[in-house]
């Protein structure tokens, strides 16, 4: 019997882990996309997620739109905020210096600004999207294993968006340009790619994906200005998978989601974060380039 219980916990946590991991993947992919072009860690990425969450909440509760329109608004809104952030904060820095540290610190500033704007404007309290927003029925899969429709739903949507991104990158002209820019931004510019527009598009896409993640996270947990802090885990996932690599970000996110949920199920849920950060450090020590990253040695 003990084994049966253990097995069903295992199965349960694997499903939860995949679902959580798929949400991380949405965030990590956007972060990694930006990294692949500009090679800096955009710490404001969590802010885009919060913007998406609040726009969705506002349209849904305040204006009474249905969830699809509200989500669409959130996606586009967060995309615009991301592109605007790039234009106002990062572009002037990019044009002046090639030191990515300045971008990194500016992005932390942006993240603090976004978080505190929401604290001031809408208040710091926790908000929940209504329960019936998304399918939330529970199915039983025999034994003690139950699956929430929401978990499956978020997994499906995440896969859809990631697939869409893959198509965009592999089949369109702009996708080709982005892949070229990831190889070498300067050369791509010399070959006639409009670099400014390209970077704006990359940020728009990153913000849009972050908003999808933000909506799911605000249903799974609740919505509050500091929700963006969870992106740290998506960064970890991106690093584990290999910075700048999109398949890496997805694989890293799934590994992280599983590790987190299995730790919560079998050890203790307080240890989850510790496990996440230990994985990061171990990965960096063993294979700093991650599973799929470009091999980085010292730049000589």
């Amino acid at each position, binding site marked *: 019997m003990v084994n049966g219980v253990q097995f069903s916990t295992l199965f349960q946590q694997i499903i939860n882990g995949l679902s959580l991991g798929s949400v991380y993947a949405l965030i990590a992919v956007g972060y990694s996309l930006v990294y692949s072009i500009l090679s800096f860690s955009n710490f404001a990425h969590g802010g885009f997620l919060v913007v998406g969450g609040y726009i969705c909440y506002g349209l849904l509760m305040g204006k009474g739109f249905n969830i699809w329109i509200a989500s669409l608004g959130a996606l586009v809104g967060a995309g615009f905020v991301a592109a605007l952030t790039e234009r106002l904060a990062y572009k002037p820095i990019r044009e002046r210096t090639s030191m990515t*540290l300045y971008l990194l610190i*500016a992005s932390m*500033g942006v993240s603090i600004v976004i978080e505190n704007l929401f604290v*001031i404007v809408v208040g710091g309290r926790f908000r929940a999207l209504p329960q019936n927003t998304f399918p939330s029925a529970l199915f039983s899969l025999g034994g003690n294993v139950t699956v929430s429709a929401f978990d499956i739903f978020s997994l499906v949507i995440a896969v859809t968006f990631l697939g869409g991104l893959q198509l965009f990158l592999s089949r369109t002209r702009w996708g080709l340009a982005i892949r070229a820019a990831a190889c070498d931004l300067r050369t791509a510019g010399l070959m006639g790619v409009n670099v400014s527009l390209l970077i704006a598009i990359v940020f728009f896409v990153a913000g849009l994906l972050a908003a999808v993640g933000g909506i799911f996270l605000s249903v799974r947990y609740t919505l509050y200005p500091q929700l963006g802090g969870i992106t740290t885990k998506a960064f970890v996932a991106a690093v584990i998978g290999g910075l700048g690599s999109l398949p890496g970000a997805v694989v890293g996110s799934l590994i992280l989601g599983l590790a987190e949920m299995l730790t919560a199920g079998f050890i203790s849920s307080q240890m989850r974060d510790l496990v996440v950060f230990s994985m990061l*450090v171990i990965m*960096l020590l063993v294979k700093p380039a991650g599973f799929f990253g470009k091999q980085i040695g010292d730049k000589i």
Partner: protein
Amino acid sequence: MRKSLLGNAAFVALGLVLAFMPLSGYEEGIVALLCINCIAAMGVSLLTGFTGIFSLGHAAYMALGAYTAAIMTVRYGVHWLPAIVAGGIIAVLVAWLIGMPTLRLTGDYYAIASIGLGEAIRLILENWQSFTRGARGFPGIDSYTNRAVSVGFFTVLGIGMFNLIYSRLGRELKASRDDRVAASLMGFHTPASRMKALLISAFYCGIAGALLGGYMNFIQPSMFDMMKSTELTAVVVFGGLGSMSGTLLGSAAITSVMEYFRDISQYRMLIYGLLLVVIMVLRPEGLLGDRELWAFVPSLRGGVKRSEAREGGEGR
């Protein structure tokens, strides 16, 4: 030699002024806090500005110093002075353990690893209930950090730091920052000097943390989160990478701005965030660039302007 003698004398004078200037109780508190922040900032400046290693986890060393000093004084009744020093030493030991494997990472990778390590240390402090009292914090620390103590530590450590950056080790660090390969070819053992920089910076942060504990009478793991680490690095960048006096100015400026806006605490963090962005956009090289304060005084400037000599190093 004359120059550094003059510098030392100036620093002692600064310390004496800070220590004996007549001030109200509130202002004394600010001076103490200022000194604490400057000590931590000097540590991070050595690592970031002078060695070119970007850390986003240095708050963890402050946390180690703070908890060591707090536990030693409260639980074991140790005198505050050895407890503060022990706080610095524990930070150094942990930094050594961490630095051994991670210092081979460079650039963003070290920064990300340091986030992970910093958060891991914070989470350990938070979850080790029996020893640290966990997330609710550690109350009842004696207020051993008065103005005299923190100014004293600041003066001693400041003189140490300024002499260090003009010493052989200081030049070695700058060489390995500007071009690691060339520095290695010149015969410097760059991994060892990077390690020394990390250990010294951890020591400064540990001391600052221990002093902070005595200043606040209360510490909590969440005081030393990633936000605090960011602030440490941001202060250094604001002051100017590679300028120790700039670091002190930057730290003093940020501390005063934050104090000034204490009444409108709601907007405080917003202003701080905007400040970071605006500084990066308008003056990414920071207040003083990579020059020291006295490089702006013509009679003290010796020959070549260093900023010209370093022009090529921008593209790291």
